[in-house]
C-alpha cells in the first residue's frame, strides 16, 4: 500500500506534436530540445519538484522511447524519493480490453488505478508542451481557498491572438462563467495554459461518465470541462503572470530559443531558487579554437567550435568545423557542421551531419515576420555542397 499523497500530478506527454514536423518523427513533443541543454518536459518536471509534488505520472503513448529513457527514475528532477517518484505510464491492457489513450481525459481515466493507490485529495493535470516556471502550490492553495471542483490556470494574451486559445470568461472573483475554445470574437483574453487542478473525487465521477458517453472525444478541454460546467460545478480560473510559451510549432520553437539570446531574456534560467533540472551529459567544457568566432550564442559542454557561430544555440557535443558558419539557428546534440558549410535560420535535430561546403537555409531577413526555417530530422546526412532551400523540411522520406 502506498502512503496517501495530498496531490498527485499527471503529466500528459503522449502528444505527437505534429506541427513540429520532422522533429517529432521519432520522439514525442515533450522530448524535443530547447535552450541547448533542456527538453520541454524538464520544465513541468522541475516545477513539480519545486512545488513539493513528488508523485508524477507521465503518460506516454506516441514514440515514447526517447522520453522513457530520458525520464528514467526521475532522479534528475529529485523525484526519486522513498515514497514518490516519476512513473512512466504507457497505455496497458486489462484482460482483453487493452486500448490506446483515445484522448487526454481517457489517458487519466485509464490510470485511475494508478492514482487511487495514493488516495489523493487533488489531482494536477499538466501538459508537457510548454516552457514556463510555475509554483503549483499557489494554484492549489487558490483552488482550496475557493473550494473549487476545478481550477484552470490562465494567462492573459494579447486580445488579437486570443482566438488561437481556449478562452475563459470569469466574474470578478475569477469564477468561470463561460468558456470558448478558439473563439472568433473573444470576450476575454484569459487563455487556458493546459494546467488544471481538480478535486479528485469530483473529477473521477466526470471521467467515468465521460467514458461511457459514446459521443465524447474524451478530451479535457472539449468534454470534461464543459460537462463539469453543465453540472454546475464550481470552476475557477487562476491567473498566472509569468512567462509561458507554447512551443508547438517550428516557428514558436525557434522564437522561444532566440528569446534566450536577447539582452534581457523573458525567462530567467539562472534563478538559483528555481534552477531548471535536466539530465546532465558527462562532457568536458566546450572548446573554442584560435580561429573561431562565437557571438550572441548559448553553447553547451562537449561542443568543439573551429568556425563561426552567431545568434545560435548549440546543444552538447556539436562540432562546427573550420570555415563553417552557423547563424540564427538551433543545433541539437552531437550534430556536426563540416568545414565551410553555411547554416542559416535552421533547426537541426540530433546526430545530423551537414557536409562540407553545404548551404542550408537563407540569411535571416529581420523584416519578415513569418520565418522560413529549415528543419533537418535526426540522423540525416546533408551531402557535401548540397543546397537546402529556406523553409525546407529534410527527413528520410523527402
Amino acid at each position, binding site marked *: 500500500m502506498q502512503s496517501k499523497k495530498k496531490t498527485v500530478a499527471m503529466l500528459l506527454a503522449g502528444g505527437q506534436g505534429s506541427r513540429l514536423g520532422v522533429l517529432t518523427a521519432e520522439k514525442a513533443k515533450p522530448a524535443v530540445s530547447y535552450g*541547448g541543454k533542456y527538453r520541454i518536459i524538464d520544465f513541468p518536471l522541475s516545477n513539480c519538484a519545486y512545488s513539493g509534488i513528488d508523485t508524477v505520472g507521465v503518460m506516454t503513448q506516441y514514440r515514447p522511447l526517447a522520453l522513457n529513457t530520458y525520464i528514467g527514475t526521475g532522479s534528475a528532477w529529485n523525484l526519486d524519493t522513498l515514497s514518490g517518484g516519476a512513473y512512466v505510464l504507457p497505455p496497458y491492457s486489462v484482460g482483453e480490453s487493452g486500448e490506446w489513450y483515445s484522448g487526454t481525459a481517457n489517458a487519466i481515466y485509464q490510470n485511475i488505478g494508478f492514482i487511487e493507490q495514493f488516495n489523493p485529495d487533488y489531482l494536477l493535470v499538466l501538459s508537457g508542451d510548454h516552457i514556463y516556471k510555475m509554483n503549483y502550490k499557489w494554484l492549489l492553495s487558490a483552488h482550496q481557498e475557493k473550494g473549487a471542483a476545478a481550477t484552470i490556470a490562465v494567462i492573459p494574451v494579447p486580445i488579437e491572438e486570443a482566438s488561437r486559445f481556449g478562452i475563459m470568461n470569469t466574474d470578478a472573483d475569477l469564477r468561470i462563467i463561460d468558456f470558448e475554445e478558439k473563439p472568433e470574437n473573444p470576450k476575454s483574453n484569459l487563455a487556458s495554459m493546459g494546467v488544471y487542478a481538480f478535486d479528485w473525487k469530483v473529477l473521477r465521477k466526470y471521467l467515468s461518465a465521460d467514458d461511457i458517453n459514446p459521443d465524447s472525444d474524451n478530451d479535457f478541454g472539449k468534454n470534461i470541462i464543459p460537462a463539469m460546467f453543465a453540472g454546475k460545478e464550481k470552476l475557477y480560473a487562476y491567473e498566472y503572470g509569468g512567462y509561458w510559451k507554447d512551443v508547438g510549432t517550428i516557428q514558436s520553437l525557434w522564437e522561444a530559443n532566440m528569446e534566450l539570446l536577447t539582452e534581457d531574456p523573458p525567462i530567467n534560467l539562472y534563478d538559483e531558487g528555481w534552477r*531548471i533540472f535536466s539530465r*546532465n551529459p558527462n562532457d568536458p567544457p566546450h572548446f573554442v579554437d584560435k580561429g573561431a568566432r562565437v*557571438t*550572441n*550564442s*548559448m*553553447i553547451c559542454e562537449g561542443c568543439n567550435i573551429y568556425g563561426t557561430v552567431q545568434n545560435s544555440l548549440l546543444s552538447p557535443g556539436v562540432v562546427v568545423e573550420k570555415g563553417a558558419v552557423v547563424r540564427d539557428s538551433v543545433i541539437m546534440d552531437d550534430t556536426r557542421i563540416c568545414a565551410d558549410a553555411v547554416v542559416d535560420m535552421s533547426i537541426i535535430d540530433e546526430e545530423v551531419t551537414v557536409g562540407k561546403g553545404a548551404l542550408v537555409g537563407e540569411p535571416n531577413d529581420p523584416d519578415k515576420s513569418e520565418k522560413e526555417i529549415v528543419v533537418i530530422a535526426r540522423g540525416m546526412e546533408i551531402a557535401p555542397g548540397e543546397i537546402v532551400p529556406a523553409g525546407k523540411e529534410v527527413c528520410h522520406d523527402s
Partner: protein
Amino acid sequence: MIREAFGIIYPDLEIPNLRELVEERTVGALPIGGKYRTIDFPLSNMVNSDIRSVGVIVSRKYNSLMDHLGSGKAWDLSGKNEGLFILTPYSLRENPGVYRGMVEALRSSLNFVRKARQEYCVIAGAMSIYNFNYSSMMRFHLESEADITALYHEVDTDYSVDEQSLEVFFELSDDARIRSIEVNPTLTTLTAHSLKSYIIRKDILINLVEECYAKGEYKFSENLLRNNLDRLRIMAYEHKGYVGPLKSVQSYFDLNMALLDPKVREELFQEKNRIFTKAKDSVPAKYYNSADVKGSLIANECIIEGSVENSILFRNVHVGRGAKVKNSILLPSVDVREGAELEYVILDKGVNVKRKSRLIGNENYPIVVGKGGTV
C-alpha cells in the same frame, strides 16, 4: 576485467608546492580542466575497469572532497551493498588522523579491505591525471604471476625531480620485474617513473601492510615495495598515454594549459573510457555580441562579454565588457569586471577582479589568488 577487484584511492597526501590551491582542500578536490576535480580521474578509471566498490582514504581538509563525492552516484557507485566508501581517520584507537605514510593510511583502512568481497585490490592516488583502464594491467598481473604490479610511465632523461612530492623511479629487468627503487634521486638514469598505482591480491596486501607497520615503517615505495623486491615478484606495467603531474603550482598550470591541445583532450576524455564528475544543473554558457574567445575551454554557465584567449574558464565565470583574460585559469564563480586585464594568473573559486584592475604573472611563475580573494 578478468578478475574482480575493489579499489582504494588515497587522494590526500600533502603536496606543499601546490601552496594556496590546497590550503582549504585536499589534492583530490582540486578543480581541474574546467569542470573536474582530480579525484574524478582515478575514480572514473576504476569504474571504467568494472570496479564497483571503491574506498577513498581521507585524512585532513576533506570537506570539499566529501561535498563533491556525495553518495557516489555520479560515478555509478551508489549500489546497495557496494559503491563508494569514505574511509575517514580516527576509525582506530591508534590512528591519530595524520598518516606518516601510505602504509599507515592503508592499515587504518584494513577493515574495509577485509570486508571486500573481491579477490584483488587496485590502489591509485590523485597526484597525477591520466585516463587508464586497469583491464590490461590485470591481465599482465595474472600472466606474469606477479605478487604486486606497479603502474609507471616513461619520462625524459632530463625530467626534473621535485623532492617534496616524493618521486619514485623503477629499475626494471627485461621481463619488467622491478630490480631496484629510487626515491627522490638527485641524479638518475632511470626513466620508469612510478604512477603510484598498484594491483595486489587482497590477502597479500593485508599481510604486507601489517608486517611493514609492525616494523614501524610507513612508506609504500620506500619500505613495503623495496623491502620485498627479492622475496616477492614485483612487476611494473607501463601506461603509454598522456600523464599530467600535479606537483606544484607550475605543474598545475601547465597541466591545465595542456588540455587546450585537442590531442591531449582526446587522450584524457575518451569516448569509451569517459571521465565522470558530479553534474550541476547549470545553464549553457552565454556569449554576448562583444565576446571574443580564442583557443579556450569554457564550462557551462559562463557569461562572456569580453575577450578570453588561451584560457580555461570553470563554471559560472563572468568576463565583463572590455575585460581581457589571457593564458589564465579561472576557477568556478570568478567575476572579472569591465576592463580588467589578467594574464598568467590562477584565480581560485569566487575571486572578484575589480574594474580596470590588472594582474599579470609570468609564464614560469603564474600568480595564484586564493579562494574568495579580491584583486
